[in-house]
């Protein structure tokens, strides 16, 4: 993984903006930012407090070539996908997608913060959703609670006990899903083949861009 990081850094030399443009989803929009700051003021208040660098700053740092600082940042992982910035930006920069795109790229390079909770959620969610084609809510909840080990998991599970019991009573949490019942697609096999192909094609496209860099 860190190998890939070195390769990419070498390929794009000192042009971090170009690296983001070619490797991060919607990264080619970063240059459109005029630094007005509207996006930074648009993040949900209590999440805003967690941003080391709000979007406007991230975009400035990309242009300034602060590669390490951007890619290892905790910031992008605070995005709730609320699209508030997105609809307000005067330059129509698709900020939400760029935040996700940079985060995904940082993860691909092995630079994302270790044990970042939203990264863990993203991994767990996608793996859960694609295993059978549909989300198994009980197993999803279990893997989320036990991420910090069994002790912490049980403590969290106890805290969440009332929430879960309420849902069970209201028939909105199906315990059978924990045992591998629950919702599944019929053509799981086809889904897995399709996703393997999609992954392969995406890797090829991105490698092609880096080769031309």
């Amino acid at each position: 993984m860190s190998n890939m990081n070195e390769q990419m850094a070498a390929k794009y030399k000192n042009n971090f903006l170009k690296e983001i443009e070619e490797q991060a989803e919607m990264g080619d929009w970063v240059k459109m930012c005029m630094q007005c700051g509207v996006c930074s003021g648009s993040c949900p208040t209590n999440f805003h407090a967690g941003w080391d660098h709000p979007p406007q700053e991230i975009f400035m740092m990309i242009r300034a070539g602060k590669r390490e600082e951007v890619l290892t940042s905790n910031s992008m992982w605070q995005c709730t996908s609320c699209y508030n910035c997105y609809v307000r930006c005067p330059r129509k920069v698709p900020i939400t997608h760029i935040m996700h795109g940079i985060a995904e790229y940082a993860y691909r390079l092995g630079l994302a913060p270790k044990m970042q909770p939203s990264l863990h959620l993203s991994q767990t969610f996608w793996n859960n959703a694609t295993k059978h084609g549909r989300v198994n809510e009980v197993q999803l909840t279990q893997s989320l609670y036990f991420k910090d080990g069994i002790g912490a998991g049980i403590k969290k599970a106890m805290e969440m006990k009332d929430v879960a019991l309420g849902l069970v009573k209201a028939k909105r949490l199906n315990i059978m899903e924990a045992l591998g019942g629950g919702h599944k697609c019929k053509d799981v096999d086809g889904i897995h083949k399709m996703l393997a192909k999609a992954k392969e094609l995406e890797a090829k496209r991105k490698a092609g861009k880096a080769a031309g860099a």
Partner: protein
Amino acid sequence: MARKEYAFYPGCSSQKGASASNYLTSVESMCKTLDIKITEIPDWNCCGASISYAEAGELPRHAMNARNFALAESNLPGQDIVATCAACWLGARESKERLEHNDRLMADTQEALKEAGLNIKTIPEIKHMVEVLIEDLGYDELKKPVKKPLNGMKFAGYVGCQTNRPFGIHGESFENPVYLDKLIETVGGEATPYDQKVTCCGGALAFSEPDKAQAQIKDIIEAAYDSGAEMLVTPCPLCQANTEVYQGQINKKYGTKFQMPVLYYSQLMTLAYGGSAKEAGLDGNVIRARKLEEFAGK
């Protein structure tokens, strides 16, 4: 023949026994009254939602949505897709837009779909259930079947993020959308002046950053009480769950005494159309809506 027919994309949360199963129950009752036929897309899959961005990357996410498009197109030709979950709707629309504007992405997606024996000719239109109600039917049509108006009941219309941004409902503003208020009034209820209607509840990050999300949710509920509302109404399963199920924890943490039922627009409509508590899925509310249960029994 029903007056309108759609390929239905319920999403993971609206299946039987899942977290928004009561949404599904009330949508089915509502559609029956309105003579709207919704047919589940055979073998549909999860769209991945926004949060999967890091693990999934771009193409695999579009491929998941594309599979649903292809299944809808071949099994339910000519029908628009309708989703009830804001996140499903958003994810599907995003994929549609990207694929239609990027030939390379479309070609790659088709190649991936081939592995599952599918392919896309034309991507169907993708609507949220609210769009079906407002744009395809219209408020007048929604009002006609009202048998029991929800007179004297006060609701705060919590629109949230993803039914509102970035696509939103046609003709509505991002900062102050009024469609939910209008739906509340259409069924005879009173929509309170509510200033947190488009505040984000934290979305999926309610799992990964619970303290920050619960602080958001606290503001959302508090403002609903301040507006004089007795209940909250939402168009999105995740908004519903987030604003309902954490109230107990918020009470413990902040010493508040929140106990506000959170309903779907489709539950109000089902009740106003004369449906029973069961048909409206009221038994699925964790914080019971006693006032509505009584109303339904009358």
